[in-house]
């Protein structure tokens, strides 16, 4: 009887000690992640809740926000042509630039996936645009390159083609911006290259034994083996595409005739040119929703086309 009590007591104190120990570990853990946790609560979760609230108000930063219910959202969907224009432009931009960029990145990565000499130097060369592409300097340059008297027209002139100011052309302005981001294909290219290097050569050898040519090898071996990497690039690039701002803001200012009005530029205008913080917050939430839907869609379809080695029972 006594020993049983003793044992119980022992378990009890043991539990207590364990709890105390866990508490100590918690304390250490939270101390380490404190910087992030403060930022997460104070600069992300808090502001997001505030932003959700503001999206239901009329707020100009000077006077207190006034509650307007769903007015901002209703206005946006029924009464704001520029909102729809921004959606349209952004979708064309994302669906135009992301596939092109990834295809080009994969193409270049395959060129570099060789043991030939000099590839390291080439890789550096091809990556330079991606280092500088987002800068104001390149935005400035782009405007001049594609301007009426720019280098592009000069080159076209050699072939007898009459150029135009591509940046201020309603038909071509958006394409020049797409070209600019496709040109910055470096990061997905490096990721593809690492992915390609990880594909075991035996798979290609086996395919060759089965009589597969280069095209079939690409479809049957390269693409499936690369699918996790394609998936990663697709998610990252799509989100980045929806967030694009600098190119449109600096090169075309959304023009001509709103033909390059990126969603982020429209949002910036509403918030910091008109100080319509309520409406801009509503715009931000719609952007979040769009990104979430697309990401969820890509994740959802992933099981049909993303092939993981461990599942394949390699």
């Amino acid at each position, binding site marked *: 009887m006594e020993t049983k009590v003793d044992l119980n007591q022992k378990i009890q104190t043991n539990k207590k000690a364990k709890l105390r120990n*866990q508490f100590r*570990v*918690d304390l*250490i*853990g*939270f*101390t*380490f*992640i*404190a*910087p*992030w946790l403060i*930022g*997460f609560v104070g*600069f992300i979760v*808090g*502001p*997001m809740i*505030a*932003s959700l609230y*503001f999206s239901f108000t009329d707020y100009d*930063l000077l006077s207190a926000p006034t509650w307007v219910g769903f007015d901002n959202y209703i206005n946006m969907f029924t009464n704001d042509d520029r909102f729809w224009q921004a959606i349209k432009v952004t979708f064309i931009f994302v669906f135009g630039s992301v596939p092109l960029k990834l295809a080009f990145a994969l193409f270049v990565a395959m060129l570099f996936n060789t043991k*030939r000499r*000099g590839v390291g130097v*080439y890789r*550096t060369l*091809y990556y*330079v*645009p991606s*280092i500088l592409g*987002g*800068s*104001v*300097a*390149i935005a*400035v*340059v782009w*405007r*001049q390159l594609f301007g009426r*008297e720019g280098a592009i027209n*000069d080159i076209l002139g050699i072939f007898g083609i009459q150029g135009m100011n591509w940046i201020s052309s309603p038909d071509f302005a958006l394409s020049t911006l797409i070209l600019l981001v496709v*040109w910055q294909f470096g*990061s997905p290219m*490096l*990721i593809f*290259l690492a992915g390609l290097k*990880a594909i075991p050569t035996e798979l290609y050898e086996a395919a060759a034994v089965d009589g597969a040519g280069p095209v079939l090898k690409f479809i049957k071996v390269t693409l499936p083996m690369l699918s996790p*990497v394609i998936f*990663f690039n697709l998610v990252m690039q799509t*989100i980045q595409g929806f*967030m694009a701002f600098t190119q449109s803001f*600096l090169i075309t200012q959304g023009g001509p005739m709103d033909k390059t009005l990126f969603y982020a530029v429209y949002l910036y205008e509403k*918030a*910091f040119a008109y100080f319509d*913080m309520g409406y801009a*917050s509503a715009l*931000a939430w719609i*952007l*979040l929703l769009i990104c979430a839907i697309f*990401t969820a869609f890509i994740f959802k379809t992933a099981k049909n086309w993303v092939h993981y080695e461990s599942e394949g029972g390699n």
Partner: protein
Amino acid sequence: MKKSKSARTVIYHSSIIALGFLMIYPILWTIASSLKPENEIFRNSSSLIPSFLKWENYAAGWEGFGGLTFGTFFLNSTFVTTMVVIGTLFSSTLVAFGFARVNFRFRTPLFVCMLITLMLPQQVTLIPQYILFHKLGWVNTYLPLIVPSFIGGIPFFIFLMVQFIRGIPRELDEAAYMDGASTFGIFWRIILPLTTPALATVAIFSFYWTWDDFMTPLVYLNDTKLYTVALGLQMFTDPSALSAWGPMFAMSVVSILPQLLVFLFFQKYLVEGITAGSVKG
């Protein structure tokens, strides 16, 4: 057989060089234009060879306008970037160690939260953060640019460090623990020295993103004296200020020079950083 192989090699190299030339043509063109006399920038504009090198463009551009030289913008950018790099190194190492090595409760859900914020569009928090900083009286100071880095503002870096620390054998921690080291001691003396390559990657990336960043300074800085290089350069492109193209190109070159130099010297770390998150995971 041998001949066709060498022919293929020649075709391979020449086509890659041709395509590569096309890739960096805009950058070469910028450098060329920065040294061209004014009347050549638009005549024969595709040419990469100026008739003579007009270095005066650089002097004229550096002078800036309104009594502010480009040197001011350069100093401002250097200060902001340095602080952000320090802040990022500080927060990402501490937080990553916590997530990778300490078994506290709620670790997994919090880690998932952090991964979700990786994919959060910047615009969503932009407005409420602006309102917050506005209320704090931080608008038109460097605080909104710098402070977020000290509190893990860019979760990508934490993620990168977590991936890296997870690759360090746990036996090292345990051995140090047996020797009586505290958790912080393990972090400071064992883990931190081993993460140097990852620290380099984080530092280089945060340097790039801060140097390049246009939207944040645009939103928060009003006073031209505080302008970073990105904003200063944008002033050059203002149609009302635009009188000299040569100096504008010259300052474009100057503004990308630090990025170019860092890239050429440290590209190894950059490549590792880009591929670390995607392929290992």
